[in-house]
C-alpha cells in the first residue's frame, strides 16, 4: 500500500498549498472526480455532483468499523459502478484521494469481490465535512469478517474527492 501522506505533508510545509475548488453548498456542484490515469496525468475524467450520485442505484450497508462506535447504516452507489465509467481492460488499481490530500491505493478487485460503496448518507442523513462527509468509502466489514484488518481500515477513505483508475 502506497501512502503519500508524509510526502504531501512535506509539500504543504514547504508552502505549496493546493487551491481547492470545493463549494459543498449546491447539489449540482462537483463533489467527486473519477479519472483514468495517474492523478497528475491528463486522462478521461467523469465529474459527479451530489445530484448525479444520488441518481445512481443506491446500496445500503449496515456495518461497524474502526471509526464508528456501533453498527451504522451507510448508503450510496457501489464503487464498482463509478469505476466502470472510466475503467479499461487491464486496470487494476484505484488511488483514492481525500479532501486533506490523504491518498491510499486499493485493488479494483476489492470493489468487485465486495459491495464497497461510496456512502452519501449515514443513518439516512447526508454527512457534513465535520462528520467525515460528504463521501466516505465503506466496506461491508460486518458481513465479511475477513475485512476486519488494518489493511482494509486504511482504505476507508472519508472526505473522498477523487478516484484515479490505473493499470
Amino acid at each position, binding site marked *: 500500500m502506497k501512502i503519500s501522506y508524509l510526502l504531501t505533508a512535506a509539500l504543504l510545509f514547504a508552502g505549496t498549498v493546493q487551491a481547492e475548488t470545493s463549494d*459543498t453548498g449546491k447539489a449540482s456542484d462537483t463533489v467527486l472526480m473519477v479519472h483514468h490515469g495517474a492523478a497528475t496525468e491528463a486522462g478521461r475524467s467523469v465529474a459527479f455532483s451530489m445530484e448525479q450520485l444520488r441518481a445512481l442505484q443506491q446500496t445500503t450497508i449496515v456495518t461497524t468499523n474502526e471509526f464508528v462506535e456501533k453498527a451504522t447504516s451507510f448508503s450510496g452507489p457501489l464503487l464498482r459502478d463509478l469505476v466502470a465509467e472510466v475503467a479499461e481492460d487491464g486496470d487494476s488499481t484505484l488511488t483514492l484521494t481525500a479532501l486533506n490530500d490523504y491518498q491510499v491505493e486499493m485493488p479494483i478487485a476489492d470493489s468487485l469481490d465486495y459491495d464497497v460503496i461510496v456512502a452519501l448518507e449515514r443513518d439516512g442523513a447526508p454527512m457534513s465535512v465535520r462528520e*467525515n462527509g460528504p463521501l466516505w468509502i465503506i466496506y461491508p466489514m460486518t458481513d465479511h469478517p475477513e475485512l476486519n484488518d488494518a489493511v482494509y481500515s486504511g482504505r476507508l477513505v472519508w472526505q473522498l474527492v477523487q478516484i484515479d483508475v490505473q493499470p
Partner: protein
Amino acid sequence: MTRFDRIRWLVFAVVIAGMAASVVALVGMRDGMREIGLENPNGPIWFTTGVEYDVARVEGTLTDFARGSAGQDEVALRFDILWSRLSQIGKGAAAQKLDGYDIDVTAYDDLRALLTRVEGQVATLDDVARREAFALADEFRAFLPGLRQISLATLDASAAEATGWRDRLLSVSDNSLILSGALGVGVLLLAFGFALESQHTRRELRLKKALLEEAQVADLAKTQFIAVVNHELRGPLSTLNSAIYALDISVGKDMPPKFVKLVRTARTGSAQLTSLVNDLLEADTYATGQSDYAFETAGLAELLKAQISVNQPYARAFGVEIVAEELDRDLRVDGDLRRLGQVVSNLLTNAAKFSNPGDKVSVSLKRVGGKVVLAVKDTGRGIPEALRERIFERFFQADDAPGRERSGIGLGIGLSIVRSVVEAHRGEVTFESTPGRGTTFFVRLPEAA
C-alpha cells in the same frame, strides 16, 4: 520398553514440546505486532501527525485569507476538516491506543475548545476581517509545538512498544535457536542410538546365523556318518546271517549238543544285531525325512503272531516268555505292515529286555472307544518318574539302567521309531508304568473302514 527406548521417547517429547511452545509464542506475538506496525494508516502516530497537519493547513489558509489569496469558503473547509479529525481522535482503535500510552492530550481538548469558540467567527469572516484572520492564525500556530510534543511522545511510545515486541521476538528467536540446537543434538542422539542398536542387532544376527550353520553342518555330518556306518555294517552282517542260517538248518542229530547250542546263540545274536542295524537305518531315514510308507489294509492279529514268534528267541535269551492274551482277529488297519512289524518288534524286545527272568510279556489287541488298541505289558521294574518325559526322544537311554548290562548294545532309538511310525499312521502311543511293578505300552490306531 527398554531403558533406552524410554530415553528416546523422552528426548522426542521434549523436542516436540519445545517446538510447540515457540510456535504458540510466535502466534501470540503476531497480532500484537501488527497493531503497532508503523505502516498501519490508522495507527496512533498517523492520527497525531494528522491533527498537526490539519492545524497547520487551517493556520496557512487563514494567513492566505488575511493576505487576500484565499476565500472564506476555503477557510471554512479546512476548519471543518480539522473538526472532523479532532472528533475522530476521541474514538476508535487509535484513541484506545493513545489512552494506553498514557500521553497528555489536553492540547486536543484545548484545541476543541478553540474550535468551538471561534466557530462563529470563522463562519462570518469577510473582507474587513482580514486582519482578524492573522490573530486567529496565530492562535492556531500556537498549538503546533504542543501537538508536535504529542506526536513525538506517541512515536516514542510506539517505538518503545515496538522495541518491547522486538525484544520478545528476539528472545523467542534465541529460544528457537537453542531449541534448534537441542533438536539437532536430540536427533543426533536418536540417530546414534539407532545406529548402535542396528549394529548390535546385525552382529547378533550374524552370530546366530553362524551358529545355526555350524549346527546344520554338524547334524549333516552325523547323519552322513550314520548312513555310511549302516552301509558298511549291513554288508558283512548279511553274509554272517546267511552263513549262520546255513549252519543252523544243516545241524543234525550227530552234532554235539554244545555245538548246536552255540549255533542257536549265534543265530539269536545275529538276529539282534540285524534288528539294531535296521533301527539305525530307520532312525537315519526319519532324520533326513526320507521315510516313505506303503499303506495297505490288513488284520493286525496275524502281524502280532508273526512278531511274537520272531521275537520269542530273543525274549527267551532273557528268560522271558511272550504270550498273546487276547487278539481280536477282526481288527483291521490301514498301515505299512513292515513298519508296524518294526513297532511291535521294538515294543516286544524292549519289554523283554526290562523284564525279570521268569516274567511274562503279554500282548493284547482290542477295540476300545472306536480305536484299535495294541497293548504290550511287562512286569519289569517300570520307568522311573524322572525319565517318563524323555523316553520317546531319539538316542535317549536310561544310563543307569541295569537292563542295559543285560541287553548288550542298545541304541536308544527303538521308542523314537515307534512314535514316528505310529504318528505316521495317525495314531498315538502312550504308556502306564509303576516302578517295580511293570510297564504297559498302548498303541492306538484308527480302524480301517
